[in-house]
């Protein structure tokens, strides 16, 4: 990508990533005729949660897209998408603490420990923090291979996120199922990529012994 294109593309993508949050804010304050309906707190909670998962999955799409298209530009947006996943997760948590639980600390502690799905979500968010702290290019250079290893934490984070979604649904699991399928595809691709060379070697070996 030329420097000029990068200068335009990044702010554009950044603005697009902010749209769900702006849309929510407009609804919460009844701007532009928008409204969040009878239960605005739940809409805010669920929308932020949903976009956390969306951005986690988008982030996980970048490597496969690079592999298939052989364009490196995808990786240039990976950090931004990952940070937006954290941004929406933080909003999700804030809505839960300040609006849903109305800041009642005792009840919140109780909920995090006692509700398995909240425990899962909290754990997922905590695991994102080291990734955010080491998201700079400098940290990436300094840490080298350890950076790659650390940032594989996004796999368990995404698993925890989808599990957290699945577990809080009352009955209609179609949506969490869809997220689980996409995640399985994205993680399955990585497993396939990882084991493919060994598979190829063992198949070749097998063929050779067959011939002998």
């Amino acid at each position, binding site marked *: 990508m030329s420097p000029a294109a990068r200068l335009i593309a990044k702010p554009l993508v950044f603005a697009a990533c902010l749209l769900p949050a702006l849309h929510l804010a407009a609804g*919460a304050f009844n701007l*532009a*005729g*928008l*409204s969040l*309906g*009878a*239960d*605005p*707190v*739940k809409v805010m909670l669920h929308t932020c949660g949903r976009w956390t998962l969306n951005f986690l999955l988008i982030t996980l799409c970048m490597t496969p897209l690079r592999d298939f298209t052989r364009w490196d530009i995808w990786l240039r947006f990976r950090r931004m998408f990952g940070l937006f996943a954290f941004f929406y997760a933080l909003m999700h948590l804030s809505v839960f603490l*300040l*609006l*849903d*639980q*109305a800041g*009642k600390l005792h*009840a919140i502690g*109780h*909920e995090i420990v*006692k*509700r*398995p*799905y909240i425990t899962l979500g909290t754990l997922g968010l905590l695991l994102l923090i080291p990734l955010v702290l080491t998201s700079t290019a400098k940290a990436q250079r300094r840490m080298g291979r350890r950076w790659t290893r650390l940032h594989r934490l996004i796999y368990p984070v995404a698993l925890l996120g989808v599990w957290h979604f699945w*577990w*809080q649904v*009352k*009955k*209609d699991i179609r949506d969490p199922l869809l997220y689980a399928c996409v995640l399985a595809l994205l993680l399955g691709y990585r497993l396939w990529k990882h084991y493919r060379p060994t598979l190829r070697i063992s198949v070749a070996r097998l063929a050779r012994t067959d011939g002998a």
Partner: protein
Amino acid sequence: MRRARNQSVTTLPSEITPEARYLSRRTLLAGAVGLAAVQTIGRFLRPALAETAASAPDALSFARNTAFSIAETPNSLRDITTYNNYYEFGTDKTDPAENAQRLRTRPWNVTVGGEAEVTGSFIIEDILKPHPLEERVYRLRCVEAWSMVVPWIGFPLGDLLKRFKPTSKAKFVEFRTLYDPKQMPGQRSSVLEWPYVEGLRMDEAMHPLAIMAVGLYGKVLPNQNGAPLRLIVPWKYGFKGIKAIVGIKFTERMPRTTWAEAGPGEYGFYANVNPAVDHPRWSQASERHLGGSLLNSRRPTLPFNGYAAEVAGLYSGMDLRRYF
């Protein structure tokens, strides 16, 4: 009571929703989900409509029952009619308002069977006719830990059930919702087992707080709220309040109710509002009251939704942790 088959239907004028009025309501609904401009216009129209409601043809005549009503401000008609759990019309809260308009609530029959002397199929006009209507302002506490205040129009369930002369074998009463996937598109999905079934123990059903509702805010019940006939049991979680009832059956055994079948560990037959017994996945100790402040909507949940003095006696000696 007259039977449906050999009876010419006489419909009270108050029970008919004329097309014009129906359409104007639809327009408002479209505004609610549609373009911002339409919505803004709708916002200006709504108060005007509310003022003329008393003389509107779908207005019901009723007496206020203040003794049984709570002294809380009801939620707006808009909240009550656009935020509904009614899986027959979809699993999103806004689905019923969009999809329930194709339900035809007249003609409507209710089949009564089981352990009773008077059984058969009855037209809804005959079901409703002898009962004077009253307004009861109740808080609806959903099992999902939110609540709303609704000014229902209805009559005591017990008064209706007595007319069928249940026998001594009748220990429970079972209610059934219409099953018609053409009118209820949500029934094409297998998210729940259809038709929806709910039930009460006879002593619960005869309690004066339990009502059959036919309206809200002084007017005929909107389809998305369970028209033409729905159950309201204010000391129980909202899912007990079965909607669009077409069947009533008196039974000796406890009915197999829909949510209890769908998740036996999560939803019980009794489903009494109980802050001390949590849902396995979320707390029931408090609830978010909708329609109020964004910042401080959470409040403690009351045992039996505030009716402990009236109904706790029904369950004396029962372990409410086991019979949740």
